[in-house]
């Protein structure tokens, strides 16, 4: 169904009601295995093979990293940039749970899943990028940590976050799937859910504190590099700017991905939720741009933005993309065009990605001057680990209730499986209300 018309002024009220996201529903009726999925799996397998080669022969033969550029795209793109896109659980979560923008709860499962996948893939590649990963076991002994090192903060905090609060936040959809899977599992699942809910406030709070710490520490990493980071980027406010970029980029990632999924799998878009997300994102973008501009002006680095060199080029590209994205999001709120909103998310996230990529790579000036360009192997591995995340996403949204949808979608799914999976009836799921369709009618008929 066409969704853009739903938000037109004077749209049919019933149509808006029918598009309201009520419930997360698995994507049904589309096979998991398709050519695109197979391509992603192939890329992932290629990356795994190359990874084995890297583990045997070292980083030098496979990558373009050198003494001047000690960090390649595995760290600077897959970790610095991709985890910023995957901070949805942090940014959307804070908006929903702390600032109580309750409409955004519809997007929470998407945010949690994309975050988990981005972090998991980033951390795996971080382990491969590390030269001596077997020594990561020191993480278990807090008294061996170098408490004031930004890198220790990032490595430890990120791993703990992805493995404990973020992973546990993703458990409820899995438990829900088990609950519907077999009625015999229900008492056990419900007991687990009760335990999880008891700890939920503590978990969620940790899930906002930890990313706040490590996303800002990612910026603090480059503080120690001092003069080698171009003055347009090197600032004491780097941690805060990194955190700000992560928050608007992750809104873009979550809302943009959800819109794309709705488009691909032909689901209705709830414009009330999307408008709210776009409004928050645009404010985050403008606040971030304001802070960035004020910082550059007060440090007296503005002049370097008008030099005719690659740094100024990167800077203006970043600023133009971000502000253009913010403006398009704003326009989409008044002209009610989902196309503008989607493009706004894409552009602002691209601008943010360039920002997060710059201090370590594009605006990094090692002394003596040297060049770094990722090798084919490096790019293939980087792409492979991103593909793994996307493949995981495609598999999970088709099996577990992640994507938000109107109530009709849920009933549609029940009807769909009633005919196509008749064995579901024999194992007794429907008896206890599989999909809630055959719930014994205990309610008052009126």
């Amino acid at each position, binding site marked *: 169904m066409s969704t853009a018309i739903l938000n037109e002024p004077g749209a049919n009220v019933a149509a808006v009601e029918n598009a309201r996201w*009520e*419930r*997360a529903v698995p994507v049904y009726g589309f096979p998991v295995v398709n050519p695109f999925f197979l391509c992603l799996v192939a890329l992932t397998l290629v990356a795994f093979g190359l990874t084995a080669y890297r*583990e045997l*022969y*070292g*980083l*030098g*033969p496979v990558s373009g*990293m050198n*003494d*001047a550029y*000690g*960090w390649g795209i595995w760290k600077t793109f897959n970790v610095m940039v991709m985890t910023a896109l995957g901070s949805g659980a942090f940014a959307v979560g804070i908006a929903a*749970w*702390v600032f*109580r*923008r*309750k409409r955004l*709860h519809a997007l929470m499962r998407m945010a949690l899943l994309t975050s988990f996948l981005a972090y998991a893939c980033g951390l795996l590649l971080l382990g491969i990028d*590390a*030269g*001596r*990963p077997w*020594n990561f076991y*020191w993480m278990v002994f807090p008294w061996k*940590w*170098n408490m*004031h*090192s*930004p*890198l*220790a903060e990032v490595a*430890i905090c990120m791993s703990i976050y992805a493995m404990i609060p973020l992973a546990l936040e993703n458990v409820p959809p899995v438990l*829900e799937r088990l*609950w519907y899977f077999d009625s015999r599992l229900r008492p056990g699942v419900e007991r687990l859910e009760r335990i999880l809910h008891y700890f*939920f*406030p503590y978990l*969620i*709070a*940790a899930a*906002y*504190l930890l990313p*706040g*710490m490590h996303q800002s*520490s990612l910026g*603090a*990493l480059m*503080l*120690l*590099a*001092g*003069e080698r980071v171009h003055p347009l980027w090197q600032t*004491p406010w780097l*941690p805060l700017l990194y955190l700000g970029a992560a928050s608007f980029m992750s809104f873009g990632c979550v809302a943009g991905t959800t819109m794309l999924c709705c488009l691909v799998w032909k689901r209705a878009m709830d414009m009330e939720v999307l408008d709210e997300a776009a409004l928050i994102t645009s404010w985050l973008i403008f606040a971030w741009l304001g802070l960035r501009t004020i910082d550059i002006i007060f440090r007296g680095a503005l002049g370097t933005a008008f030099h005719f060199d690659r740094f100024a080029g990167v800077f203006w590209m970043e600023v133009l993309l971000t502000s253009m994205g913010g403006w398009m999001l704003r326009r989409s709120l008044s002209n009610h065009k989902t196309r503008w909103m989607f493009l706004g998310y894409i552009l602002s996230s691209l601008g943010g990605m360039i920002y997060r990529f710059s201090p370590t790579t594009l605006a990094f000036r*090692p*002394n003596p001057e040297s060049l770094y360009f990722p090798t084919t192997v490096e790019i293939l591995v980087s792409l492979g680990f991103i593909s793994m995340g996307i493949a995981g996403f495609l598999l999970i949204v088709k099996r577990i209730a992640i994507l938000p949808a109107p109530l009709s979608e849920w009933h549609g799914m029940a009807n769909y499986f009633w005919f196509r999976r008749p064995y579901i009836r024999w194992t007794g799921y429907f008896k206890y209300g599989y*999909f*809630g369709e055959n719930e014994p009618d205990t*309610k008052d008929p009126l």
Partner: protein
Amino acid sequence: MAITRRELFTTVGKASVPAAIALTVGTKTMAAEEIPMPNAAVGLLYDASICIGCKACVAACAEANDTPSDTRTDALHQAPSDLNDLTRNIIKLYKPEDGSATSFVKRQCMQCLDPACAAGCPFQALHKDPDTGIVTWTADKCIGCRYCTITCPYHIPRFQWQGYNPRVTKCELCSDRLDKGLKPGCTTVCPTGAVIYGPRTVLLSEAKKRIKTNPGRYYQNRVYGETDNGGTQALYLSRVPFEKLGLPELGPESVPARTLRWQRRLYQYFALPALLYAGLVQVIRKSLKGHEHEAHEREKETGLRAQL
């Protein structure tokens, strides 16, 4: 229901009292922060003006550290173009195009008093000895993140790019030779005495004596490393500007002290994060209650199990 103004103010108010206390306590300790001088700090004094560039120290360094000769680029013995995973010490020549004064320079670890590499090292693989002040690398603690190669303002630590078990290489002032009562390899062979070893205080007074006896001979009449980057244990004298020799002007404050000041303050005793956590738990508890209530209301309306 969105967070109310009253709730916001009271939460912020409650949180700000302990936060203020933590910040003031933290600020006091930060103001007292000084770079401790190791009581038996040893170092090198390199006088570029009397170095003849014979590279005997480069060969002696390789021998003392038992490293194979680096023949990777052109199969020549001990002729690498820069420091690398087999070269802890190197002699370079600064020769400007305009024909003005040339100078050799010996590059090795500066053994900073407040080393940026150790400040960034996540599990203290790079560690400054509290007595001698020598910065050493421990294989068992290094995760191979290469952050030291990013942070070092002198670009000294080098990562081994080949092999499954890479190491980080930097000058450790031959600390195992020092334990045996020997001098660092490079200082044992220098024919002109351009590089000498000794306690830092002795070297510093020696350098100042040289400046006093030869006024105008040395650049700015000063010793590089006395206060630069918070002070280093390798001291340099030169006729040409220091930054031409790869020794940047970093100011008297060390790089970690200058750049990580706020980072350190915010994480002091982990007080502010803990406070923030407690505040978040309070707010989220309330939101969760409301959210669960709404979800169960909706469950009754639709007859479908609530999704939390």
